[in-house]
């Protein structure tokens, strides 16, 4: 392992992130009282677990030479993944402000028309059908509470 710069395998990269994460947890726990072996405080178990994750991460880095190299990962689906995640983020902020139906309508038009490039007619039909159909079934019939926007949607 010393002869050359270790290859960036997927395990090395991911385990390094885990190591950093565990260090972060330990750092963040500093404000919480640790307690003692006989009376563990709020930081006791988290620090124990973070230390364990740290050790495991280091082991994975050490033994990761044979894993696939980072460059072998294919990210062909990243556009779709990003679009879907953005839709979810939009839903988080919109659902209680615009109401359920409007949020779903906009999200579906974006995904079906914008991302999947379907026609306007089928996209709008699908989006309207899903937004109002699911709202009717779950809110009106089954009484699952869903938010309504300021315009009553």
């Amino acid at each position: 392992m010393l002869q050359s710069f270790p290859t960036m395998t997927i395990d090395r990269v991911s385990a390094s992130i885990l190591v950093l994460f565990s260090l972060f947890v330990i750092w963040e726990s500093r404000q919480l009282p640790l307690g003692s072996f006989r009376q563990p405080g709020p930081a006791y178990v988290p620090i124990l677990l973070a230390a364990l994750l740290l050790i495991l991460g280091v082991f994975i880095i050490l033994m990761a030479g044979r894993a696939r190299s980072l460059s072998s990962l294919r990210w062909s689906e990243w556009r779709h993944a990003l679009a879907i995640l953005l839709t979810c983020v939009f839903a988080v902020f919109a659902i209680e402000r615009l109401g359920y139906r409007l949020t779903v309508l906009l999200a579906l038009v974006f995904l079906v028309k914008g991302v999947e490039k379907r026609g306007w007619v089928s996209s709008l039909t699908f989006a309207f059908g899903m937004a109002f159909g699911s709202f009717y079934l779950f809110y009106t019939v089954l009484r699952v509470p869903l938010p309504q926007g300021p315009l009553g949607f």
Partner: protein
Amino acid sequence: MGAYRRFYFLPALLMLFFGVTVESPGQEKYPDRPITIVAPFPPGGVADLTARPVAAALEKVMKNPVVVVNKTGAAGAVGMSFVANSKPDGYNLLLALSSISIIPEADKLFDRKPAYTMDQLIPIALISADPTIFVVNASRPWKTVKEFVAEAKRRPGAISYSSSGVYGTLHMAMEMLTHSAGINLKHVPYAGAGPALTAILGGHVDTLASGPAVVIPHIKAGKIRPLAGWGAKRVASLPDVPTFKELGHDIEFYIWAGLFAPRSTSPAVMKTIRESVKQAVNAAEFKAAMEKLQTPIAYLDAPEFQKFWDKDAKMLADAIKRIGKLEIPEAK
């Protein structure tokens, strides 16, 4: 027309998005759309079970839909801060329990940014108030508070009690007792009043303070024994159980449920709500519903409720200060 529309579209969308609506100049009639009562605890809890009959009775009086929404999380803080920070238009009300006064105090203790403050809310009416009952597992020897206190003094920190959680209402009641009697008990917190009851029935802890409706079935079955109550007077369904006041402990504690609105709700709207609630709690239907829940109605209108709340909040604040910040699980 087209240009006109475009001009208004963006601001309109922004207003939609940030929940801002234009105040219409002439005050409209209240209520003209459904009113929401937020219960900050899950369905089936005391807050939810009290909110439902209140909503049903209020709906009849106001001739307007009143719906209960459960906004749960963080021991009720999520739902309470939701109403505290909502628009003071009378359409978002809160049905809160005693813990409403505890959370801001605990936030203060831990130097946290408070989820809400009590000034953000204004009381509408007290709906019910039940004193907690002090019970011991039936296999334990103590028959009276005196015997119990004597034993606790002889073996400090040995007798245990379960609670609904640290700084929870049941913890507060016990803290008042231990403070007043000058005793040390072992506190084992559980995740809610249900598990705390299970713990005493299983004999994993010795004592518990909880509401009458919770403990009475098990008292009747002989599994637990009541020693005293926290009320100013005895509980009607437990006439033989003395109050702590009778026994010389000057403590009083209730698990209560009350209705609140955001602080700056206009006086006119407040007046409508208060009068409607007054009629609602006197409706036969509402009385029957509360009877079934074995929860006596203890209606107080806003001014008296404010006084009650102030006194209660001060008492709880003192108790929290006495407990202080728990570095480690409590075993004083």
